[in-house]
């Protein structure tokens, strides 16, 4: 076989796979979303966005992402730096820190529910220690902030490790010599982090952020377990339209809105973290 055909042959299987299981379903969803029974229109979008729950679920989704992702980023950077500075037991620590990655998001939600619910660990602990007279319902419609905090905590606990893994690999790729040069030329630990680690980590940072932000917009199972209908998000709206209201067109429209936000945020992240032309990192 001629060498110039080889690349195409090699990417053929994955292209077929993506075409069949991604592009085609995407086409079907887009068709469903933009079709109102008679022809092409934005009717489905008007319908879902004018529904009273839409602004709340939209706001909740964005707020959750805006709070969770930066905390996860900071934590992942801190943990990755710590892991890379370790001489012994580095792998063990990394394995332990990534355990939550292996737990399904619904299970993660249920674990945190077990902590926060009325007969949960937190209540019994505080009661046992005498801080409260009797267990109270922490997760209720009277406590929207606490619901938000519980969901954010569960998400941070569950999904920080994915960023951690990417950043650990990225930091490992930065040659030691740059740090030594920075040290000799007067940079302390913090300045080395700001002036060497962060800029040289941009490719890994953008990968980790894009991945994490997109997943944050798709948050569903954890929210479902902890907040139920008390904390609507875009993904739970999609679910409700599809399986409870049996309105596939509306579900498709919300799904496309989520896709739109994801694409927009991806573009912003890639632009902010882009490497200047000519710089090789």
């Amino acid at each position, binding site marked *: 076989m001629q060498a110039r055909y080889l690349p195409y042959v090699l990417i053929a299987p994955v292209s077929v796979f993506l075409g069949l299981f991604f592009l085609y379903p995407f086409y079907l969803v887009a068709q469903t979303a933009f079709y109102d029974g008679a022809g092409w229109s934005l009717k489905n979008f008007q319908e879902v966005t004018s529904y009273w729950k839409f602004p709340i679920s939209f706001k909740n989704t964005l707020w959750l992402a805006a709070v969770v992702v930066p905390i996860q980023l900071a934590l992942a950077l801190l943990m990755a730096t710590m892991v890379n500075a370790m001489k012994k037991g580095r792998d063990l620590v990394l394995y332990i820190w990534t355990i939550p990655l292996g737990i399904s998001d619904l299970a993660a939600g249920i674990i945190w529910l077990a902590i926060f619910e009325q007969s949960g660990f937190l209540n019994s602990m505080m009661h046992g220690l005498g801080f409260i007279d009797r267990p109270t319902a922490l997760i209720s419609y009277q406590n929207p902030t606490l619901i938000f905090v519980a969901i954010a905590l569960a998400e941070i606990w569950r999904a920080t490790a994915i960023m951690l893994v990417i950043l650990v690999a990225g930091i490992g790729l930065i*040659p030691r*010599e*740059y740090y*030594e*040069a*920075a*040290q*000799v*030329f*007067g*940079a*302390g630990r913090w*300045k080395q982090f700001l*002036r*060497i680690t962060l*800029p*040289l980590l*941009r490719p890994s940072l953008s990968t980790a952020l894009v991945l994490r932000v997109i997943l944050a917009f798709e948050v569903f199972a954890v929210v479902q377990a902890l907040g139920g209908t008390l904390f609507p998000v875009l993904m739970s709206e999609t679910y409700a339209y599809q399986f409870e209201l049996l309105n596939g067109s509306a579900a498709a429209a919300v799904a496309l809105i989520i896709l739109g936000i994801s694409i927009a945020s991806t573009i912003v992240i890639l632009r902010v973290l882009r*490497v*200047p032309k*000519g*710089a*090789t*990192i």
Partner: protein
Amino acid sequence: MAEIKIKNVAKNFASYQALNDINLTVSDQEFMVLLGASGCGKTTLLRIIAGLETATQGEVWINDRRVDHLPPKDRGIAMVFQNYAVFPHLTVFENIAFGLRMHKHPSAEITKRVHRTAELMHIEQLLKRYSGELSGGQRQRVAVARALAMEPDVILMDEPLSNLDALLRLEMRAELKGVLAESKTTAIYVTHDQVEAMSLADRISVMNQGRIVQASDPVDIYRNPAEKFVAGFIGNPPMNFLVADKQADGRWNVAGQSYDGPSCAENTLDFAIRPEDVVLAETGISAKVNVVEPLGVHLLVTCDVNGAQFRATLDSDANIGRGDTIALQPQLDRIRWFEPSNGMRQSLEKNDV
């Protein structure tokens, strides 16, 4: 004033002793080269002076100030790394300015100094480029400029030319020597290339297996190697060695010839002579020619003398072929003698019988 004193420095990596009781003084504005084969500890010593490595014992003094407990940034040093370590995410300007920014120099001063050093290193037209857009030689210039811009007391260089091709290395070598002499900085330069060492150094410290074997000026090292190791390491081709048997006190028999030598208790010594310090003669050390290499300037002749290899650089006009037997006469004042047991040079004046 930047004098460097290294006192009793030793370094162990686990059970491996990389440096063994190093004592060295580098005086102000001196260009000191640490020369040795790879693994001799020269880079480790440089990194200890820089503060990138901690000595297991001993003291490092810069400017009458003990610095071993100080981080690299507080030692008044700048360094040029073997792989340049030019930051890939910063422009050439920002690379040169890096140290100055870290030390919080005012921005007008930074701009001035960056432009001055860039001009000195002939890279002023590259200031807006990134390191990925530079050739190896240009990157090397940036690395040197970054160090010079600091106007440091001491500049440390770790094989800075080893990644350049031969022609560029020659050019940079001459330039580096000029620039450093101009800057009046004390310099410590690590290399395994003896020609580089000879051409740059005010003084060379020859290192072997974690200790300094000899520290002296290049000519003295070449002419009067303190140990057989130095004699065999310096010079290309290196010194020739022949076994000398004692004839009488101060008289030695070398391959059938008799020479004046040191008077000492030993019964055998190593007779040593540089290849260029022998001439063709009617009578002399009898040598069987194995290989003749015409090098233009002279003939490099590899011979066999009583089973030992012996090289001589002879006049290119000499009519010599493989298999010939020739007689070689050493220049008497260039003969050196080494003790076989410990490799130390026996001086002629020394009389320890």
